[in-house]
């Protein structure tokens, strides 16, 4: 892939389905398992569905496959909430940090010119070949 796929959507629930479908399409083309796809979609929707995390009524989601991983970037973010929550991933609470820490391999906040963005990455591991019975 040459560059990221960029989706600019109103941050409303019906549009989250559009993003989920695009993530699914990308995952299908990179042999991501159903469970990994589910994790990625859930991680993304968890961020999108809380207006605490994103700034404004419009949100941008970038999808990219590079370095053996599918990466989703969401932004711009609202204040320091996401950064703070990511920092408390090991706590007892089932907050954003713990959720993302379980669902994706890498969740981090990046600084860009227009503010902070959340980057979620999941490794695209080589899928074990199907056994002879399935061949």
């Amino acid at each position, binding site marked *: 892939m040459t560059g990221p796929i960029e989706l600019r959507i109103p941050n409303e629930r019906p549009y989250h389905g559009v993003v989920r479908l695009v993530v*699914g399409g990308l995952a299908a083309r990179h*042999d*991501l398992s159903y469970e990994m796809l589910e994790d990625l979609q*859930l991680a993304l929707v968890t961020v999108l569905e809380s207006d605490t995390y994103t700034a404004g009524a419009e949100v941008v989601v970038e999808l990219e496959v590079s370095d053996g991983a599918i990466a989703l970037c969401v932004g711009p973010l609202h204040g320091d909430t996401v950064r703070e929550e990511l920092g408390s991933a090991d706590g*007892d609470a089932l907050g954003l940090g713990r*959720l993302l820490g379980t669902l994706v391999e890498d969740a981090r906040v990046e600084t860009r010119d227009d503010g902070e963005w959340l980057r979620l990455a999941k490794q695209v591991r080589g899928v074990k070949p*199907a*056994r002879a019975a399935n061949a």
Partner: protein
Amino acid sequence: MPEEKNDKELLRRYHERGDTEARERLIEQYLPLVRSLARRYSYRGEQLEDLVQVGCIGLIKAIDRFDIDRGVELTTYATPNIIGEIKRHFRDKGWSIRVPRGLQELNVRLSHLLEELTVQLERSPTIPELAKAAGVDEEDVLEALESGQAYATLSLSAPGGGDDDSDLDPLESLGTLEHEYEVSEDRAVLAPGLAALDERERRILHLRFFEGLTQSQIAQQIGISQMHVSRLIRRSLEKMRDEIVTEEEPRRASESRR
């Protein structure tokens, strides 16, 4: 058989003399049949008791429409009526928004294929593998999976437990590990929003996010399908978010008044 004779007698009393007490006795007598049929469908995301209620409607219709002169047994006549009512319930009320029948059916088929392929491949299948097994395009699989988001797991908000029937479906019972779990998940209960969840939902979130089990491992442990685990996780997180918002709303409002 004396029971059959008893059935005929009760049916005659109800149909010929309008004896509603006879009708009620018939309903009671056939409740185990309804329960047994409802259990077959309870893996689809609804509580057994809800399906028993739906199945009872089918039983009552069968009793009301039964023709005592046709020479068939009530069991033979009632069974398809009960199953039909349960299937209609899933078809008409199980989906919160209008989803084309084809997609609903593919979603159900994918749920089964997901289980089969996970066992066969010893890992979670990919979308192309699911598409191949279902004989459809990858886009159809994605669309059907997405349509599953619209599936209304109507009973998910019902509190867990409360059914003292010893012959519970695996879906209904959390088994003997329940007490052990109650102790181990204490810390998770402290998290905001978790109070809104029932015991099964809390257990699933605990297994996924504190024990690190995968969806398929949880499905195996609890005895429900992977897709059902996925729905329960999503729904539980939604409920938690709603609860947190509800809790925070009065505080925010009072802060803004200051």
